[in-house]
């Protein structure tokens, strides 16, 4: 279970990334944020977001039309 959960279902680009960035501020360094989204573009975008910001993408899963991501805050 992640430390913070963000429900980004129904939101389109770039809102899942923007909400995640905001939510990460409430996560302690080394803590985790789980994001649930329905935007298929979020899969590639969270990879790019994590690579660029130095945060770690621990998990990226698809369950039908719902995608979930776990990010470990590193920066």
């Amino acid at each position: 279970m992640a430390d913070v959960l963000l429900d980004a279902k129904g939101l389109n680009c770039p809102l899942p990334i923007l909400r995640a960035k905001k939510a990460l501020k409430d996560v302690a360094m080394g803590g985790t944020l789980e994001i649930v989204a329905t935007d298929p573009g979020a899969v590639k975008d969270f990879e790019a977001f994590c690579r660029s910001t130095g945060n770690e993408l621990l998990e990226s899963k698809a369950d039908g039309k719902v995608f979930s991501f776990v990010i470990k805050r590193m920066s």
Partner: protein
Amino acid sequence: MSKDSNTKSMSMIVTKGTLDWAYPPFILATTAAAMGLDVTMFFTFYGLSLLKKKLNLKVSPLGNAAMEMPMFGMHIGMPNLVASIPGVEAAATAMMKGLIKKKGVASIEELRGMALEADVKMIACQMTMDLFEYKLEDMIEGPVLGGAATYIENATKCDVNLFI
């Protein structure tokens, strides 16, 4: 403008003020800021209207051959002759706004607010203010007034520069 040598930066020139064209600059600016970039937006010509307090953005199918709207289970474009009939622009705008809401796409007001919140630097073109007789009190707070030199000085220090 980079705070330090490690911070990436992006600038863009925003020249268009229709509902559809307002999206690319604000989406890219908010996302870049979320990814840790320093972002500067220079609003000029029709793009300057995006800094008005009261936004009344429209989209027109007139002369826009690529604009197809999902309707009746298919995609429908519009001949110019039809697009030029009074009321069609308003109908197309209402339809686009409906789609935006339905598909969970942020509004321009929302994205602009998030850009300001994320410290995106905005420059309002002074020449355009004069040219179109825009009043300062009609514009949002936050942007600074400047001209081409202000933008170019900034752009020379950026990693990414876009013209939209």
